[in-house]
């Protein structure tokens, strides 16, 4: 009975838990309730993933209305894979949250954080599982609106401004998506993705279809923070409370990448996007420029959060490179990198949260010599940084290696060369921080600080050790991702 309704439960559980949170006035009670919900959702999505791996994709009809007319939820390899790591990271970050929240968010606003967090999670999961295009827009707005509100909770006065700028960009992006959906509906008379794909068929010449595709691509590129549409991201990540940054940085852009993969591969077909209209050339170019510009910008940052934010923009570039290669290996590497980067960036932002708790600052000059008093936190940065660079035995290496072999198979030697070169930039910005942590005289603030509490270090190390585990054990990440890529490419004629 429950098993049959799994696809909808994953979305519904956090959605219903969110308003209930507001009614629980006790702060500890709200936190425990939200935490239980997050872990339960994680369990449900793992259960769903296991079921999909066993029996193949599951289609669920909401309210028993048959598919092209009613809303259909589709749990396939890709969607359950993305859902499993999104919920996993949400659960770990919330476990880490209480100490960090006490420090960084006004106590009178605490009861708002958890409902918003759950709503955001529910929106992200909805985007993943729905098979209905208009539903994607609605869930995108649910997750975006709650993330604007979460970002504005930062203590700095710049937080509301950063949230506002993100709101303007995000709304333009979502409205572009809405225009695209409208034009497609006009063309096909359906909103169901699978039905839409059959209706569009091999007709690649229609102007309406091209315009719809253009609007949707640009709209999602804003959400993915693809260079040069990334301007909202550095401020939003920098001024949001640490746990919000960790959660959003690890999940929100990845889910937008997921939506983009769905639209390109499941609705428009790669033939239309890449062969007829040559989107791959543009995507590759923007991805590479973005990687270089953002990595270079990261080198010059004096704020640790902003440094990681720029690095996130660069990392989205690698995912896009994989997606635009239009072959099984490339797509697999793009999907794996979504997962690996989520774990790495989530872990690193949790490290930043530990520094923010003890030193009340994340400016590099205040972190000087922090390895003396905070050895565990500093070591976590080193491990996470190695993952970000893509050193062998870390998760980052797995996805970059796949991407590199895919590029070489495609005979795009220039792309492969530039990719390797860009990893050197990552070495520079990670090393700069390591040097400050380990080889500088401790600052006054550092001398009087202590190691971060265990309640925060344990969740941080959970993700950091995840980087090492998924660097060696790849049958979960690469195995499922290649199955997902195969399904995406096999589904299109």
């Amino acid at each position, binding site marked *: 009975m429950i098993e049959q309704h799994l696809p909808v439960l994953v979305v519904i559980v956090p959605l219903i838990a969110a308003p209930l949170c507001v009614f629980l006035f006790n702060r500890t009670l709200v936190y425990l309730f939200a935490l239980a919900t997050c872990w339960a959702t994680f369990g449900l999505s793992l259960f769903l993933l296991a079921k999909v791996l066993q029996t193949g994709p599951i289609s669920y009809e909401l309210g028993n209305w048959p598919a092209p007319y009613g809303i259909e939820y589709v749990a396939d390899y890709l969607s359950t894979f993305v859902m499993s790591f999104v919920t996993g990271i949400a659960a770990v970050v919330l476990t880490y949250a209480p100490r960090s929240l006490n420090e960084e968010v006004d106590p009178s606003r605490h009861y708002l954080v958890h409902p918003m967090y759950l709503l955001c999670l529910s929106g992200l999961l909805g985007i993943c599982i729905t098979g209905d295009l208009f539903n994607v827009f609605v869930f995108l*707005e649910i997750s975006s*609106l709650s993330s604007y509100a979460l970002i504005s909770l930062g203590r700095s006065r710049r937080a*509301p*401004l950063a949230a506002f700028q993100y*709101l303007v960009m995000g*709304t*333009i992006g979502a409205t572009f998506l809405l*225009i695209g959906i409208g034009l497609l*509906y*006009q063309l096909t008379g359906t909103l169901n993705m699978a039905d839409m794909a059959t209706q569009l068929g091999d007709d690649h010449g229609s102007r309406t279809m091209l315009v719809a595709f253009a609007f949707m691509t640009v709209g999602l590129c804003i959400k993915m923070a693809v260079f040069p549409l990334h301007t909202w991201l550095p401020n939003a990540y920098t001024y949001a409370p640490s746990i919000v940054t960790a959660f959003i940085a690890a999940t929100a852009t990845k889910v937008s990448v997921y939506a983009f993969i769905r639209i390109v591969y499941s609705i428009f077909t790669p033939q239309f996007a890449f062969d007829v209209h040559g989107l791959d050339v543009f995507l590759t170019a923007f991805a590479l420029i973005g990687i270089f510009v953002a990595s270079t910008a990261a080198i010059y940052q004096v704020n640790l959060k902003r440094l990681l934010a720029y690095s996130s923009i660069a990392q989205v570039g690698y995912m896009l490179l994989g997606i635009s290669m239009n072959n099984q290996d490339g797509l697999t590497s793009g999907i794996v990198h979504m997962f690996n980067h989520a774990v790495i960036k989530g872990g690193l932002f949790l490290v930043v949260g530990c520094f923010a708790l003890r030193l009340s600052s994340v400016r590099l000059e205040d972190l000087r010599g922090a390895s003396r008093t905070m050895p565990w936190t500093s070591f976590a940065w080193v491990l996470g940084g190695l993952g970000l660079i893509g050193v062998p035995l870390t998760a980052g290496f797995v996805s970059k290696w796949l991407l590199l072999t895919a590029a070489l198979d495609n005979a795009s030697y220039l792309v492969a060369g530039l990719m390797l070169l860009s990893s050197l930039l990552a070495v520079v910005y990670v090393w700069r921080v390591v040097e400050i942590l380990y080889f500088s005289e401790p600052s006054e603030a550092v001398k009087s600080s202590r190691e971060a509490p265990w309640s925060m270090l344990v969740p941080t190390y959970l993700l950091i050790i995840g980087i090492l585990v998924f660097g060696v054990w790849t049958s979960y990440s690469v195995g499922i991702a290649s199955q997902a890529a195969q399904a995406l490419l096999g589904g299109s004629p």
Partner: protein
Amino acid sequence: MDISSVLGLFNYWIVIVLMMTGFYIVIARGNLIKTVIGLNIFQISVFLLYITMGRMEAGTAPIIQKTAEVDQAYSNPLPSVLILTAIVVGVATTALALALIVRIREDYGSIEEDDILALDRES
């Protein structure tokens, strides 16, 4: 394209004009309230696009009546329903944006983007 087909596309012209007006306001205005107004105009143009596509000439509400003629045309109600959802989303976005502006004004004492950025540079 003759005059009747140009006039026949009247709604779509309005959609394009509104869309560009709204988009331009968002890009060009530094006042935060005006940005929100621009955003609203931009969104409303899309609402019109949807509503227009659902409507057809001589189409009535899609309710079958006993006395209806056999070849009676019906308008598609679905775009209007979709847009009802989008309007709700738009209202929520506007409410959140205005709430953020209130907080920005409390902190900076201004809602002009240039002034705010100048204040940030000083600090």
